């Protein structure tokens, strides 16, 4: 085991450090609170390790530059917040369509529009899912701590490379700015092999048979990259069977690797009556409630925290629904993931939303007060 030492770190810094540990050597971004520390950390660190930092003229350009650098063979990341995330959407769709790996960090703030700069919120869950136009697959992670931010960033980078799929990290202002202890492996060897042109002679950039590795530009494989529907070599097509096959294929790769992509964590009673399902910083309040109710008082309660929001952890949610009578879904928005929970729980349990959208966190008291109704 490599030598490790605990350090005090902010969520945004942990995101940057995680990215560097996972081999990210290119960052393009535009300043926006509460995400700017990610850019600042990258600007300080990347030049020392032979990487590229560039502050672009706007959010759209940042997203485009990241895709361009990925096509050149670099591991890439960009960070933003709500308004900037809206601007990035068209090019996120491009990266999904052209299957170019990259990681997009959105440190959520209270919206819509400029909103309350920069009160915390979890209002971008559905934008992360459906922000760009057309049917498309997405991977979205939402860490609840600085530690989780570090490791989920690494997972995001690696999955993005493996599946040739953009991965979105949905932080929130609380997690992004909170300082906590993180244990980082010293001299970590998480770097993955360098991009190369070492592929079989019959390599096709968009092979119908499944996942083909991305061969960066400049190695003599003269393929085409486009946001148009394309054939196996990347050339535009409007042929209906080929269009349908392409759209199926980019969705199927997520289904195939579903268990690597969908990450959740359950704590609490084995036969719970009430289960809390939540994500991001709200997990912290929920955990405090479950600690007190279950660990101290052995009450039949549990917490399913979702590290992966999309693809939605349907199996895991159905599993707790079969045991529980009631599922409480606290969110710092007007109810976004709760609809998805209801869709999968059906009549197995009663689903109760708990929403707060005044720019403040949901407190443990709010959750325990609601939970108390079914436990007395």
């Amino acid at each position: 085991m490599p030598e490790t030492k605990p350090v005090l770190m902010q969520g945004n810094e942990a995101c940057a450090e995680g990215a560097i540990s996972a081999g990210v050597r290119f960052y393009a971004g535009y300043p926006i609170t509460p995400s700017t520390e990610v850019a600042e950390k990258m600007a300080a660190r990347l030049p020392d390790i032979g990487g590229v930092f560039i502050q672009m003229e706007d959010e759209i350009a940042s997203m485009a530059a990241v895709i361009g650098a990925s096509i050149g063979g670099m591991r890439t990341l960009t960070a933003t917040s709500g308004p900037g995330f809206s601007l990035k959407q068209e090019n996120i769709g491009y990266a999904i369509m052209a299957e170019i790996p990259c990681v997009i960090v959105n440190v959520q703030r209270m919206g819509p529009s400029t909103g309350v700069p920069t009160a915390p919120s979890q209002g971008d869950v559905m934008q992360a899912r459906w922000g760009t136009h057309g049917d498309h697959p997405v991977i979205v992670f939402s860490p609840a701590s600085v530690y989780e931010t570090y490791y989920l960033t690494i997972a995001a980078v690696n999955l993005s490379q493996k599946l040739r799929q953009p991965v979105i990290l949905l932080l929130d202002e609380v997690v992004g700015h909170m300082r906590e202890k993180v244990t980082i492996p010293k001299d970590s060897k998480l770097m993955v092999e360098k991009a190369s042109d070492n592929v079989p002679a019959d390599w096709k950039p968009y092979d119908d048979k499944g996942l083909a590795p991305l061969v960066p530009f400049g190695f003599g494989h003269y393929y085409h990259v486009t946001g148009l529907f394309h054939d196996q070599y990347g050339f535009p097509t409007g042929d209906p069977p080929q269009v349908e096959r392409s759209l199926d294929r980019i969705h199927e790769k997520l289904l195939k690797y579903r268990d690597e992509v969908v990450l959740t964590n359950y704590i609490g009673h084995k036969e719970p009556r009430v289960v809390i399902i939540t994500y991001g910083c709200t997990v912290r309040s929920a955990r405090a409630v479950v600690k007190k109710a279950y660990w101290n008082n052995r009450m039949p309660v549990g917490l399913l925290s979702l590290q992966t929001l999309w693809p939605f952890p349907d199996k895991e949610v159905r599993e707790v629904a079969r045991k529980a009578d009631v599922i409480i879904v606290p969110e710092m928005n007007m109810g976004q993931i709760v609809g998805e929970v209801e869709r999968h729980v059906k009549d197995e349990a009663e689903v109760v939303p708990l929403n707060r959208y005044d720019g403040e966190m949901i407190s443990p008291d709010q959750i325990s007060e609601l939970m108390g109704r079914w436990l007395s």
Partner: protein
Amino acid sequence: MAIIEQLTKDFLRTKKLPHIWCPGCGNGIVTAALVRAIERADYEQRDVVIVSGIGCSSRAAGYLNFNTLHTTHGRALAFATGLKMARPELILFVIMGDGDCSAIGGNHFIHSARRNIDLNAIVVNNHIYGMTGGQHSPLTPGGKKATTAPRGTLERAFNLLDLARGAGATFGARGNAAQPRQLEQLIARAANHKGFSVVEALSPCPIAYGRRNKLGGAVDMLKDMKENSISMERASRKEQSELEGKTITGVIFAEDIPEYAAEYYNSIGKSIPVRNDG
């Protein structure tokens, strides 16, 4: 003739032809000039990348046998900036139309110029949005008609090269589809220049622009283009009044200023891989 045959074999994706462009369109002439310029510069095929935006001329990328990147509307230069910074040894040609480059992509255009990053922007200026059927662009001359300016546009057009120069570009040239040999030379010179280079390639769109403005067919438009243009060299010997209505062609400006990607790599103490080309 032998050279042309060789070119189509290596640098054109002949299986993707015929192209989608209308009869009389200048895009094919500009694309051919680009291909000959690449041949003239003697670059290795694997070192050349074609990036393009969205619009008629941007479809050229699909017909060129290199690593080709057909991006989103207006964003070609931003994609190219990321790629150039990741792989500074590659030679990037960025094909854009007038609307793509100067309207929706205007911000990326001025900032690429400001950085003086070594990208070669080929702006195919046909004064109109062709693919969407003839709407006015920031390069449509004042008074000219478009579907969205049926009485003639009241807006003033950009002078693209003035804009580029003002924003910090270090090479600017103008050519046209009626004088393809000159255009080829200008593109080759742009590629050879270290820094942000802009080649404005005037090109006829008889279908969406010429017809509505009664400019005749493709041949008439090419003829006018040729007659109305004057080389930079000859223009410099004329009075301002004699240049009324003339379009100046050739290298309009060129200066030697440190290039961004090279400066960045130098600043972090990392060497850029050396290409072996002529």
